[in-house]
């Protein structure tokens, strides 16, 4: 015979303070667990969405990011002629050779220095990145010392309003527009004319080349073509999404590893909390358990009842924790990504698998914390249980 669920429910309700305290512990642990996973996911998805599936990015072999990569003019001219590259309406290759430079700007809130990316782009840059669109002002003019700023830069940094000027390189740059990068890494960049950037920084080389494939399947063939040509063999081709995913790897792994270590330690704490509560529940209800056994409830039913009580407790805590964590999706964090040494804005991203993981995590805590006390309850001897006061 089973013990009805309402018994469990009422037992929890009778001991409200203890129940709430235990619940609070589980909630906090699940909250941290979920928030950490969400943050790591946020970094990944920001960078992965920065890449487009049909785009290929070229950097110098052994360069881990655009920052340390160099590609010379001659190589770009050769690559431009490859047939695998998509063409625009006017018959030119859909390709943008770019420079990638980092400058320091002061943050609005903290006055701390942030590393902001200045990307010198060619005329096809916008077309290559479907996520990027001009939100305010106008596009910079090629041949002029003008830049447009990403939405995150304008939000987070000083002196990045439309019409203001920035001094870097050998020139003064006027901000003429603001663009939205759709939550990608481009949101944290400044864009200007690549030729102007090269002149201002006295660097005749490019950092990277991005182009669209005419056919997504032709990736292998162009990769091979580039690596076989002796003039371009020092250049490495990568699908843009993969490239950006690699940029997020270290940061995401770091957050995750740190988070897992901390939450595992936490969860042991919360489990002990649940165990204390459940042991107390068993001790307080010894007579009750004895009575139930006398009424004919089986040991197994008692075991289940207490286990269910513990699971219910942790499940509630898990749900509360996830609910609390979902509130963090409104927070955006802007920090330096270790992989690129440049500022990156990202948020907490909640996904079904994170919810599942958090709930499973909570229930596991409940099972582990409740099992031993439940066993003790089930093994009570009827006579001594009834006699205890």
């Amino acid at each position: 015979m089973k013990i009805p669920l309402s018994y469990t429910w009422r037992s929890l309700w009778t001991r409200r303070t203890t129940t709430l305290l235990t619940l609070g512990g589980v909630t906090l642990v699940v909250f941290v667990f979920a928030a950490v996973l969400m943050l790591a996911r946020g970094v990944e998805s920001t960078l992965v969405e920065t890449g487009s599936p049909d785009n290929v990015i070229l950097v110098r072999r052994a360069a881990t990011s655009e920052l340390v990569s160099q590609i010379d003019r001659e190589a770009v001219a050769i690559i431009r002629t490859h047939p695998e590259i998509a063409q625009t309406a006017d018959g030119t290759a859909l390709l943008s050779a770019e420079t990638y430079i980092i400058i320091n700007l002061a943050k609005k809130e903290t006055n701390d220095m942030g590393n902001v990316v200045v990307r010198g782009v060619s005329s096809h840059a916008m077309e290559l990145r479907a996520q990027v669109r001009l939100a305010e002002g106008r596009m910079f003019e090629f041949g002029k010392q003008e830049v447009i700023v990403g939405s995150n830069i304008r939000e987070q940094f000083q002196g990045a309003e439309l019409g203001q000027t920035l001094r870097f390189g050998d020139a003064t740059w006027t901000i003429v527009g603001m663009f939205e990068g759709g939550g990608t890494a481009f949101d944290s960049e400044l864009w200007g004319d690549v030729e102007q950037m090269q002149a201002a920084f006295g660097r005749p080389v490019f950092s990277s080349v991005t182009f669209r494939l005419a056919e997504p399947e032709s990736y292998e063939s162009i990769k091979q073509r580039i690596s076989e040509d002796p003039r371009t063999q020092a250049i490495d081709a990568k699908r843009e999404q993969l490239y950006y995913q690699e940029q997020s790897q270290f940061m995401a792994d770091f957050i995750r590893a740190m988070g897992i270590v901390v939450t595992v330690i936490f969860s042991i704490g919360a489990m002990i909390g649940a165990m204390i509560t459940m042991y107390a529940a068993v001790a307080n209800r010894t007579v009750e358990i004895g009575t139930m056994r006398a009424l004919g409830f089986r040991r197994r039913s008692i075991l289940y009842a207490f286990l269910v009580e513990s699971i219910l407790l942790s499940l509630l805590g898990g749900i509360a924790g996830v609910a609390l964590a979902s509130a963090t999706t409104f927070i955006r964090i802007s920090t330096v990504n270790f992989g690129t040494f440049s500022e990156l804005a990202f948020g907490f991203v909640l996904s079904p698998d994170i919810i599942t993981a958090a709930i499973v995590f909570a229930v596991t805590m409940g099972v582990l914390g409740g099992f031993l006390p439940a066993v003790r309850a089930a093994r009570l001897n009827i006579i001594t249980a009834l006699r205890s006061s």
Partner: protein
Amino acid sequence: MFVLKLVLKNALRHKLRMVLTILGVAIAVTAFGFIRTILTAWSAGVEASATDRMITRHAVSFIFPLPLAYRDQIATIPGVESVSFANWFGGIYKDPADPNNFFPRFGVDVETYLDIYPEFILPADDRRAFIAERSACIVGEKLARQHNLQRGDLIPLEGDIYPGKWEFVVRGIYRGKDPSVDETQMLFHWKYLDERITELQPSRSGDVGWYIFRVSDPSEMPRIARAIDDRFFNSRASTKTETEKEFQQSFVSMSSAILSSLEAVSVIIVGIILLVLANTIVMSARERRREYAVLKTLGFRPFHITGLIGGESLLIAVFGGGLGLALTFPLSQAFSQVFATLFPVFRVEVETVALASLVAFVAGLAAALVPTIRTLRMRIAEGLRAIG
């Protein structure tokens, strides 16, 4: 004395619960101590900065080089003592996916660099061998241990900022003067770097990453910084001069968002400690309502009751906190061995120990607050009537 005895007896009444609570508090305190240690390790570079050193770098960003000619000009500024310089090499060592293969590699002016960093202790023989050979390098002891490097070993690097394949011979292993010194760096000849890059990319000849110099009077630092930056203001490469501490701080504050999340987590841990402890204390106080009513009837004062409940809470907090702190050390030790180069200096600071103890103590007091008030307010008749 009597209250103390009673506290002890009370605490030992539910041995299992007592042990579990102590464990729970201990684990939370360990997590707290560990996170605080990560936070202090993060800013270890700032703490280790010398008070009489300043750094001049490119005004736009650290990634832009300064001309070699600045060295002599900086040296002429009054108050500036010896000037040295270094470049960030970057590069890839073995498999880049393993974070332990990342460690700082600097091309430095070998004649002057070690004089400016007296905390890097290099045996005289090593020093001579290092300076004599163009492709020689020295490594920190921790780095040498991590990668099993000995004098005479080759360190192959694949260049990224400085393209090509590079090989350096280990000619010396330095030790730090005290535990706060970063022993994971690799230093080699700036001249070697410059010669090769001049051949490959003549436009980058004579590029210096940053200048570092000692000043005779630290109180003069603001004036010196202004004098240097003013001198180069209208040059092709304008500069930013700051104290070594500020320079290090600027790297730490780049990850300020991560640091504040960790701080937030450490605060949440305090909440968890409190919850675990409060749970036990509330539970015990509830079970003992009748006893407390009896004590009150016998004429014990509120002071005694407070002592009983608070004492038990504090007892658990102190034991849990102590155990937790004791566990923090081996955990940090293990972590620092696994991630030796990621956090060059990773140790539990005295402030961390003090803070964790304080947190445990305050949690011990706070956890007893509600049950104590409740018990004191309880009417005796009510308490006597209470059941389990």
